[in-house]
Structures are given as structure tokens and as C-alpha cells.
């Protein structure tokens, strides 16, 4: 088992952001994490990746309890994430962003000469090769998303946490992104993704977990969750026909 969320709760002053969340992610799976805004999805990501400490509960990654580890330590173990509010390294070029990503993760290249080719490969894979010398802060949304993804990939992760990588993309870009994620998964990377774009979720994910007000209200196969009445009530909308194909933002 790649990742186990064991009874994770997170309380901020007065706000219970996460309440006893339990689920797991198998190796090489693609799991979707969905739910209304404010449900606690990004908070959960922050707990999984180490940016927040849970108030209670454990994160078990590849059989090891990583709950007290810092984010950079989890990166060294093969966990990589993207940020919903994108955080590129603004005054560094796209190429440098990805080189950085590949120098400090598990890949741990000694120097630029070694990290360079690896970075080039990833840039090509994510379609950013032409823009390698552009300063990250100059990029448009779609490219920024690609950069987030590229930088996370550069760390050669076993587990990739994607936080709304497709928000703000148009139809064609979304399809490209879906294909990209599938490729990544095929190469052996386990993926846990937060998404609002239902079409993408339904196409990609083998399993879906639904959060609402910090609690898990559903977990299961795509069919099971999509047709779950509670889920439809609070998130997907009452029109059953549209539930599977609409783009919910």
C-alpha cells in the first residue's frame, strides 16, 4: 500500500478542517479527491505532504509513519506535490525551476550537468521545452500548471499529489493534461489528485474519495461514488444526466 490516511483530524483555532479521515491509496493507482470548496481537500494535502501537522492521526507512506517528517524529508522518500495556488520560483527560468526540482529530490543530482538532461527530458514531456528560458513569473496559467507538474515530476516521485492542476485550463488543454497524467501513471507513479473537473476525474481515476466539511462521506469506484445519492446532493447536483459529463467548477 502506497499511502494510508489513518484517522487524520486537523483543527485550526475553532475550525475543524478535517475530522477522522480514513482511506488509502494502492500502488500505481490513480485516486481522485473531490468535494465542495472548503471541504478540506488542500488541507489534507498539506497534512499528507507535511506542511501541516495533523491534530491527530497518522500518515503512513510505503509502510512508514511519516507524520512527523518535514516536507523535504518526504520528498526524499518519493513524495512530490503541486500547489493549488501555484508557487513557481518566479525569478528563475523554467529550465532552472525544473533543474531545481531534479537536484534535490530523490534524484539528487550532484550538479547542473547531471540534472540538466533529466530536466530537458521532463520539459519535453510536459511541452515546455520551447519556453525553457522564460522567467517563471512570465508564464500564463496553463504553462504555470505545466511547470508545477514538471517540477514535481523532476523529483522522480513514487507518489504524486496533484492539487487542481487542471483548473483554469480550456477544453483542449484539459485533454492534454489528462493524457499527460495517464502517461505519468503508466510509468509507475501513484497519483492522488484533487479536481473539480468531473470529466477528468471520471476518465482518470480508478477510485474516488469525497470530502465534505472535513469528513469523508464516500469512497469507492467511480460508478459507485458518482451515483451515490449523498454525493449527488451535496456536490454533483441533482441532475443525474449531467453528473457524469459536466464540468463542475
Amino acid at each position, binding site marked *: 500500500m502506497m499511502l494510508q490516511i489513518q484517522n487524520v483530524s486537523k483543527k485550526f*483555532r475553532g475550525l475543524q478542517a478535517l475530522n477522522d479521515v480514513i482511506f488509502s491509496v494502492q500502488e500505481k493507482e490513480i485516486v481522485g479527491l473531490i468535494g465542495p470548496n472548503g471541504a478540506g481537500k488542500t488541507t489534507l494535502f498539506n497534512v499528507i505532504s507535511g506542511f501541516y*501537522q495533523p491534530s491527530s492521526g497518522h500518515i503512513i507512506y510505503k509502510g512508514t509513519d511519516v507524520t512527523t517528517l518535514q516536507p523535504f524529508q518526504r520528498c526524499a522518500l518519493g513524495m512530490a506535490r503541486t500547489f493549488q495556488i501555484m508557487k513557481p520560483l*518566479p525569478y528563475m527560468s523554467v529550465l532552472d525551476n525544473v533543474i531545481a526540482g531534479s537536484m534535490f529530490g530523490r534524484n539528487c543530482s550532484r550538479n547542473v550537468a547531471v540534472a540538466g538532461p533529466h530536466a530537458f527530458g521532463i520539459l519535453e514531456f510536459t511541452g515546455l521545452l520551447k519556453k525553457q528560458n522564460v522567467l517563471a513569473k512570465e508564464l500564463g496559467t496553463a504553462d504555470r500548471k505545466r511547470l508545477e507538474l514538471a517540477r514535481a515530476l523532476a523529483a522522480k516521485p513514487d507518489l504524486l499529489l496533484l492539487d487542481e492542476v487542471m483548473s483554469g485550463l480550456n477544453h483542449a488543454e484539459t485533454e492534454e493534461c489528462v493524457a499527460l497524467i495517464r502517461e505519468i501513471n503508466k510509468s509507475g507513479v501513484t497519483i492522488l489528485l484533487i479536481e473539480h473537473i468531473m470529466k477528468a476525474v471520471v476518465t482518470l481515476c480508478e477510485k474516488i474519495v469525497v470530502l465534505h466539511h472535513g469528513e469523508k462521506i464516500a469512497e469507492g469506484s467511480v460508478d459507485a461514488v458518482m451515483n451515490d445519492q449523498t454525493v449527488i446532493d451535496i456536490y454533483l447536483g441533482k441532475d443525474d444526466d449531467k453528473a457524469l459529463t459536466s464540468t463542475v467548477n
Partner: protein
Amino acid sequence: MSGVVVQVVINGILVGGFYALMGMGLNVIFGVMKIVNFCQGELLMVGMYLTYLFTSTLGLDPYLSLPLVAIIMMCLGAVIQHGLITPLLGAANDSNLIFMTVGLMMLMQNLALVLFKSDYRTVQTGYSLKNIHLLGQVVSLPKLISFGVLIFVTFLLYAFLMKSETGKRIRATSQNPIGARLVGININRMYILSYAIGAALAGIAGTLLLPFYYVFPMVGATFTLRAFVVVVLGGLGSIKGAFVGGIVLGLLETMGAFVVGPQFKDSVVFLTFLAILILRQHLVSRAR
């Protein structure tokens, strides 16, 4: 023995009042614009020199020149804000603002050096040397008058910020600039006003300081740092906090001087400052 302690406490409160005023000025600027004004002390110096000029050339009593100084400082503040600072706001990196205000600090210090030389200057009034007996201790009259005016100014500031329309607008801008803009507040004007007020407060502190202190080009340096200590002690953006923080700092300084000796009082102040700064930040990040 206790007489000395009372003296120490009184002095602490009196000097603390000034730190409070400096802290309040810094808070207005910082609270609204989130910039760290490294030249706050130099604004105090400018106020002192202005008062000195009014007194020595026009024969004005320093306290009477207060309104004049305040107005001039407000204009100066407005010019600085609008010309140099507002254009830099909004950049992700606030290092530019730091260095801009540092540059202003250097400029003001050295202009003063050029214009006034490094001489120590002060003013003498009819009552400069008069003393009052308070709680069995001897206290210099100007110090007491200054403290009184200080309290008055604090009340004015508080009333202005809390009760007046403009004051509310300033507070709105400090809490949420985007929201403030949405409700029709001209935030650029609020920025200018805030800096003007901050500068005026520093200038006023200078006017009140001159009667029993002396002015020289570097006088601002210690006050800037202490103003920051006050802000850290009292909480960012809190006028009440700055007042209390200032008094506490004054007491800390005089008591520190009493305990470890006057030559080390700076170290006491700075080390306490560092301790609080660091502890507070650690507590904040622990909450995550």
C-alpha cells in the same frame, strides 16, 4: 532604596511615552501599508531640527511650534509616500521598500550632517531647568509637560482612528485594502494620509523631546530601533498596544540600566527585543 526605584520607574514611564509615540507612528504606517519604515527615527530628527529652527530663529516656544511642525511633517510624509513609496507597493518582494526607507534614512541623516554639522544642539526656555516634586522625587518640568502633551496626542490619535470617518477609512484600508477599495475608499489617499500621520507623530515626538534632550544628526538611529521594539512588544497595528509597549520598553530600559549598569542598557533592550521577536514567531508557527 525605594526612592531610587521610584525614580527609575518615573523615568521609565516618561521616556517610555516617547517610545510609545514613535511606536504609534510606526504602527500607523506599518499597520496600513505593511511596510517597515526604517527612517522613522530620522523623521523624529527632522522634527527636532525644525523645532530648533523655529525656536532659535523665530523665538517660538518649542511647544507652540508643535502644530507647525506637525503640518510640515505631514506634508513631507505625503511627498515621500506618494513619490517614492506608493510606486513600490504591491511588489511581491518587500526588500525594495526596506532599502528605499533605508536610503531615505541615509539621506536625511547626512543632509542634517551637512546642514547642521554634528554639533549637539538643544533649546533653552524659561522653564528648561525647572523641576517638580513628584512622589518625593525630583522630575524635570519639561519632561513632565512633554509627557502630558504626549498623552493628549495619543488620545487625539485614538479618537481620530476610532471615531472619525477618515479614521475608519484608514482602519478599513489596513484590514483589507481590496475590500476597502471595493467600498469606494481611495486607498492611495489613505496610504498618503497614513504616512503623513506617521511622519507627523515622529515629528511631534521630536518637538516634545527637544526641550530636555539634544539633537544631532544621528539621534534618530536609536529611536528607530526602539520604535520597532515597541511595535513588536505591543503588537502590530495596535495603537493601544504601542502605548503600553512604549511604557514597558521605557521601564525595561531604565530598570535594565539600574540593574546591569547604564552602559549595557542598549544590550538589555535589544536582547529582550530579539527574544520576544523570536519567541512570538515560534509560537505562531507552532500553531500550525
